[in-house]
């Protein structure tokens, strides 16, 4: 067990492309850290550099306080789990799990004992004599985990280990991974492109974009206090709504009406180089059917009326899609997020607003509905650089803060 420190670690290829840029990250002993981001953001490259499968172009990587830049993977004492599981097809489950121990030249009894222990933890005991070809995806995945844990390495590195499983099994395995990591207390770095996995698994989440770290923090903090437009849009499902907002006479003109702003945001916007156009972000759960809001709550937000497009009833609550008129919010980050979601060419005209209303709401498709939203939960972003203007000392304070 050990801590892992990345000190300005960069990776550039001979053709000049920079895959990872100046990543600073301190992973504490026993911590579960998730690297998440869209494809091509450098998260896997970062993991491979920690594993030693890829050279570090500049910067320093320390495991347990020791510089390991030039050490071969076998000398770093780390175990890795791959998306493809990478089980040795010619070996049985037992041989697969024993492989790292055999290479470490342990005696046969110790190997057998350790493999049996790991197999018991992962419920693989009955499968020990099978070959990987005769296992299901979930079983293979567990064998891959088993091969990683038998050795009690300094750290686990996991490269999208659950991505090849079907949705139901993935949810199940998520808890297995989580429990295992807590049980063993081994430092773990986990790469995924799935923000749900990132939110549910990690102690801390590292959001990457284009080879650079965007924000590091516990999942809830990233959700509540995103540093920039990219983090705000990436975390959360359904994702945050983004609306175009024009600054005019100390108010924000948006598709939802004129939004008042508090002193602190006003001061920010008074400087000469402040943007005249903003992007307003608001999460689906910060909307509510206006009929269901009590007066006390009503004061903290404002209302608008819009035609209901689609209602999706989830039982516990309702996802209601509204069509709102007005200019679309546009920024490089939003385009990238849309492209990653595969929806770049299908955003449609106008704005589709996703809201999450109480199940009691009598909302119906086709009608027009009054909706309340919470001004304290609003985020304002600078479209030029994506910065969250409502963030004060790391906390988001909404548009009204004084």
């Amino acid at each position, binding site marked *: 067990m050990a801590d892992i420190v990345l000190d300005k670690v960069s990776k550039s290829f001979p053709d000049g492309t920079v895959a990872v840029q100046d990543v600073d990250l301190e992973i504490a002993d026993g911590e579960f850290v998730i690297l998440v981001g869209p494809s091509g953001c450098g998260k896997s490259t970062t993991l491979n550099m920690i594993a030693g499968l890829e050279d570090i172009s500049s910067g320093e990587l320390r495991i347990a306080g020791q510089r390991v830049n030039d050490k071969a993977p*076998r000398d770093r004492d780390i175990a890795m789990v791959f998306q493809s599981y990478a089980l040795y097809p*010619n*070996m049985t489950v037992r041989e697969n799990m024993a492989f790292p121990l055999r290479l470490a030249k342990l005696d046969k009894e110790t190997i057998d004992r350790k493999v049996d222990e790991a197999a018991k933890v992962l419920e693989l005991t009955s499968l020990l004599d099978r070959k990987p070809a005769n296992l299901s995806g979930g079983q293979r995945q567990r064998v891959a985990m088993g*091969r990683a844990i038998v050795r009690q390495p300094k750290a686990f590195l996991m490269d999208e280990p659950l991505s090849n499983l079907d949705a139901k099994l993935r949810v199940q395995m998520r808890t297995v991974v989580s429990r295992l990591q807590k049980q063993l207390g081994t430092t773990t770095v986990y790469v995924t492109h799935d923000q749900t996995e990132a939110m549910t698994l990690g102690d801390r989440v590292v959001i990457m974009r284009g080879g650079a770290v965007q924000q590091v923090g516990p999942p809830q903090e990233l959700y509540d206090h995103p540093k920039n437009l990219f983090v705000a849009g990436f975390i959360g499902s359904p994702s945050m709504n983004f609306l175009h907002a024009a600054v005019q006479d100390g108010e924000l003109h948006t598709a939802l009406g004129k939004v008042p702003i508090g002193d602190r945001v006003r001061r920010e916007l008074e400087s000469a180089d402040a943007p005249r156009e903003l992007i307003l972000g608001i999460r689906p759960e910060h909307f509510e059917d206006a009929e269901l809001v009590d007066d006390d709550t009503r004061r903290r937000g404002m209302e608008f009326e819009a035609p209901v497009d689609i209602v999706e009833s989830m039982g516990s609550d309702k996802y209601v899609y509204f069509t709102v008129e007005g200019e679309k919010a546009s920024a490089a980050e939003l385009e990238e997020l849309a492209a990653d979601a595969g929806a770049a060419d299908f955003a449609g005209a106008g704005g589709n607003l996703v809201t999450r209303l109480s199940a009691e709401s009598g909302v119906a498709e086709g009608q027009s509905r009054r909706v309340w939203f919470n001004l304290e939960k609003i985020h304002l972003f600078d479209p030029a650089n994506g910065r969250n203007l409502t963030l004060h000392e790391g906390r988001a304070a909404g548009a009204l803060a004084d």
Partner: protein
Amino acid sequence: MSINATPTGADVAAEETRRPAAVPKQRGGRRKPPLSENKKAERRLGLLLCAPAALVMIAVTAYPIIYSVWLSLQRFDLRFPDQREFIGLENYVTVLTNEFWWTAFGVTMLITVVTVAVELVLGMGLAIIMHRTLIGRGLVRTSALIPYGIVTVVAAFSWRYAWTPGTGYLADLFSDGAPLTERASSLAIIMLAEIWKTTPFMALLLMAGLALVPEDLLKAASTDGATAWQKFTKVMLPVMKPAILVALLFRTLDAFRVFDNIFVLTAGGNETSSVSMLAYNNLIRGLNLGIGSTMSVLIFITVAIIAFVFVKLFGTAAPGSDDGERR
């Protein structure tokens, strides 16, 4: 938030009963007993589709094989056509008790074993080089394959000139006498020519095997603590085993029938004949159809045994298969 979108068990069951039983459909089809009439018709169609190919095979391979077996059972020398008669296995006794045959057999085996072994090692090296080259990939691969592209007889002649004292640079460099007139050096040169010629072919087959080794597997082995050599022996070789066996089979069968190089380099002098040379000398030059055919049949049997042994090895060689148990 997870939403269970799959229909309930009752729905599925109702769906199942509504479906007509006779028509196998996607999910239900697997559990129903196979329709024997359909299967039969399918099998009949399969046989009909194979028939033309099978007929051609019979005409071009089965007939000559049977005819040569028939010839091998007769005393049949074209110089004495009158003495032709059926003599059973007498030709086989003659050949198998003859020292020339056994010398040639030994030479052939020696050439086969040595060349295939050396080719396997060199070919593997070449394959790894071709597989791993990043720059000038096309050029490296093409230049490595040139020897295989040259006609064997042409290449054999250039080797012969190279080893002929006076005209050849290799003879002048490496020996005082005429290396192609002594048995040991002749055999070495024959094997050298064979290896030079067919290593690229071996490399090509092995490269196909290398492509079968997933990159992740090697990465996993690295993090598991394997050295480069351990990665090669414990991960790459087992995964490549089927490809290696195919390559070995092809090359062994080819090598056992070695003819061109010997024919050009020594013409079988100084006891350097292979069994193919011997059969040719008896059959074509000696016009003894009986003895020649007997040798051909013996070569055929040997090749069949080699093939059989290799194919037996294959059966359990495919990685990831538990014996007899497949999904």
